[in-house]
């Protein structure tokens, strides 16, 4: 977004013009009224109370107290949060590695003039509806669905895949959703690597594997981190895959628990208690900021150790 032309090229452009404010005003206004204001409202409503099924302006920590009081017991918001983090981090790791291999394959195994087509094919599924893709995965993974009926047809009826309504199915849906975006991010970051460096490494006697581990991999670190944190944020915030493929409370190592995003959605649709929903969403924001900060510190450390 920040690739505006360098100021030296634009010295001759008059900088004081009524157009400056006029052209930025619509965006500024829209953002202030319909982005910053709702976010501020979200934080504020978390402190409201509910009387006679109506949200009433107030300032009390009642919602937070209620949420934290049953954090791990009755309503188990805390366990859902742990489930979410577990699903999001593993999904992000798997999705990033798989997409990185795809991006590498496009960049190095596909001849130059076919690369754009290869990239386009990889991105194409992104333009079909996410809800419908999840529905399709349901029919593929379900007990008598596509995979299991194929297994039966070829005489392997002893084997059946039973992952629908588990968090593994949730992850499959998420990876399918994330992959096109991650592939683009990673492909662009591989493309940005100076080819001369790779050629130099090869000419100095590196094997392909060494050229990969010592040149390509370190230089795509930034792309990998961007992709992974993007994947974590999206997975944490997504409720659809968990609801449709995980069946709400999907089985997982941690237990039969929904993800936090699913829980926010079902909590709202069952109670329409907007103050409590807002408080739950605020907690999600806090967790995301923490996760991002943690990721940032971790990469910063890794970066310093290698350089």
């Amino acid at each position: 977004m920040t690739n505006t032309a360098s100021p030296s090229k634009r010295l001759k452009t008059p900088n004081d013009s009524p157009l400056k404010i006029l052209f930025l005003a619509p965006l500024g206004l829209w953002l202030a009224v319909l982005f910053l204001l709702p976010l501020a409202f979200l934080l504020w409503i978390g402190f409201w109370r509910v009387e006679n099924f109506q949200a009433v302006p107030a300032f009390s920590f009642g919602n937070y107290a209620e949420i934290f009081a049953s954090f791990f017991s009755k309503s188990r918001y805390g366990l859902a949060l742990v489930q979410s983090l577990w699903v999001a981090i593993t999904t992000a790791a798997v999705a990033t590695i798989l997409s990185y291999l795809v991006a590498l394959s496009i960049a190095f195994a596909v001849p130059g003039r076919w690369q754009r087509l290869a990239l386009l094919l990889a991105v194409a599924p992104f333009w079909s509806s996410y809800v419908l893709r999840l529905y399709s995965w349901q029919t593929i993974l379900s007990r008598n669905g596509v995979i299991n009926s194929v297994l039966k047809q070829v005489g392997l009826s002893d084997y059946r895949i039973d992952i629908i309504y588990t968090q593994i199915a949730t992850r499959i849906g998420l990876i399918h959703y994330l992959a096109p975006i991650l592939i683009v991010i990673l492909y662009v970051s591989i493309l940005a690597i100076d080819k001369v460096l790779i050629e130099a490494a090869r000419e100095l006697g590196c094997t392909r594997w060494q050229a990969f581990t010592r040149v390509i991999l370190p230089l795509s670190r930034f792309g990998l981190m961007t992709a992974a944190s993007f994947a974590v944020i999206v997975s944490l915030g997504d409720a659809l895959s968990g609801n449709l493929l995980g069946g709400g409370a999907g089985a997982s190592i941690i237990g039969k628990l929904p993800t936090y995003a699913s829980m926010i959605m079902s909590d709202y649709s069952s109670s329409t208690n907007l103050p409590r929903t807002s408080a739950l969403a605020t907690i999600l924001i806090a967790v995301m900021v923490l996760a991002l900060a943690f990721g940032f510190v971790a990469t910063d450390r890794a970066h310093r150790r290698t350089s």
Partner: protein
Amino acid sequence: MISAPYRRNPWILAGGLWLGLAYAFMFLPLVVLVLFSFQKNRFPGFPLQGFTLQWYDKLFSDGTLLKALGNTMVVSPAAATVATVIAFFAAYAFNRFTFRGKTTFLALVTLPILIPPLILGVGFLGLLARLHLSGTLFAVFLTHVVLITAPALAIIQLRLAQMPAALEEAAWDLGATEWQAVTKVVLPFALPGIFGAWLLAFTFSFDEFIIAWFVSGFQPTLPVAIYSVLVAAIDPSLNAIGTIVFGISCLVLIGLELVLLPLLVGRPDNQS
């Protein structure tokens, strides 16, 4: 970049194989969707039971999903258009002017796509309910514009960054007012970017689910309507609407391929 001796290399082979697997994974749901929209099976599975159009028939006679598609086809083009106009003005200003707080402003624009739609959805609902706007298509329109302006802005900026500054300066020297320079020089130059931005914004809005789920009420957009059918029962007409939506997406995708990708990755000939 890729030269002849690469050909019979095991790494290249493995890469090709992996790519094949990846494509199979990516396209499997789409193939299944289209295949079973024409199949007699109530519960999709093998063996196949023959060709039918009954699910399309059911879809068109039932009408709920089509009505939702209609809702979406009103909201998404409107939101995309407003977002693209706002984005063009802002992109021009960002591209041409320097001012204090530019980086902060740009970061602020990007924020709506980084914050999970779930959180935004709750926030929008809180505000719009106070303004008695929630539960309407207008609410979906208002909120979608925020969400899709950033990608549109990014695309148009990409295009404007390719414009030589001299082009506009020449127009001023020849006596054009600033506004005339914008409409007669900058706008035509940016047109492919604007078109790409509109398509991208449209698809983002077309597929957005969770914000619409929170704010649309009894006027659901298509993804919301599909979701409510989905949680209720298995209904093969979803395959039919899926195939139709997929058709629309293909059209958008072809448009994007012609306009957007050349901007993003450069032409194939200057890569090698």
